[in-house]
């Protein structure tokens, strides 16, 4: 089973999904992230899916769950780098990511987190 590494930069956690994840790895990532948010007192989580070729309802639900969970732990989540084909497919599938914030790439994702946090201050 693949374990996705979680990187920490300042008070932001960055997860870059690089492989085709099986469902169990997705669930593990979800748990690992929740723990990491608490452990590092992170204020932001960025999930980079720029190399992910498909997002089905399972991964979609994971993204929504992580966002909801981090919100409860006082961290903001941004999903970055979703490919056009993936976005079109998600819309067709009828999947709602439950208001997860998104950005075109990692850089914009970090900028968005800064913006959201300065607005909240």
């Amino acid at each position: 089973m693949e374990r996705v590494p979680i990187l920490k930069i300042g008070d932001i956690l960055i997860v870059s999904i690089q492989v085709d994840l099986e469902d169990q790895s997705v669930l593990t990532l979800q748990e690992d992230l929740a723990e990491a948010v608490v452990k590092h007192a992170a204020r932001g989580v960025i999930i980079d899916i720029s190399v992910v070729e498909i997002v089905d309802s399972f991964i979609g639900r994971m993204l929504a769950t992580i966002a909801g969970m981090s919100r409860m732990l006082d961290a903001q989540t941004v999903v970055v780098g979703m490919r056009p084909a993936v976005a079109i497919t998600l819309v067709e599938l009828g999947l709602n990511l439950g208001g997860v914030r998104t950005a075109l790439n990692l850089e914009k994702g970090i900028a968005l987190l800064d913006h959201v946090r300065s607005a909240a201050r």
Partner: protein
Amino acid sequence: MSVDLPAGRRRIEQLLADHQDQLIKRWAQTAKASADELTEIYEALRSAIAGDDRDLTDVRGLLAELSRSRARRGFTPSDTARAVFGLKEAVYELVETDATPDTMRGFIWFSLLMDDLGLFTFETFATAREKIIIEQTEQLLELSTPVVAIWEGILAVPLVGTLDSARTQVVMEKLLQALVDTGAEHAVIDITGVPAVDTQVAQHLLKTIVAARLMGAECVISGIRPQIAHSIVTLGIEFGDIVTKATLADALAHALRRSGVLTTERKATRIAIRAEDA
């Protein structure tokens, strides 16, 4: 029906061998093709007929080549099929002078063979034409759907002409890819030049905008003409919280404000004051 008498066949083989130059010359006249091109086909045909298994693959290959090149050069399909039938005519002229029953049987067999090849040419021609049409349609799609940057971080897609489902899909995919490539967070889809929008097209537009949001970009639709606004409302299509603007200029101003380039709010009364001045 099978008219395949060995004697007749041999007679035709003999004719084709003995009178090659004469036949090709006559064939070239009726077929309006170069003798070189025909010689190749002629020789392939001769060896195919002479062979025991009568394998026509080579002949078909050459004929397909001929029909394809003719399709591209704008010949009619009849012209192309006639090019094949031309050989039948040329052979017939020879057979006439030697009307033994064997030869006649042989000719009927040969004639059926040429009919088959003629039909094959016709089919290849039609396929080649279809391919050209598909290519042109694709080129047209590419041409008719530019995605342009109108400001740093703002893309515009001016749509002109009738939107069908296929075209809308192509444009929208192109737009989403352009968002990734340029990192632009705003896009304006301008439909000023679109005469009508049906339910399917409207759905595609909406889906694209939702997809763009999933990717982290915002789209504005501009240039909705009154008739289109009317038909969208009549069709019961929900635009939800998607921003629509009357003109491309309004949409650009909106995008500039949203991206933080323009910070001043436009005064709503400005135009009225100016109108009074004038």
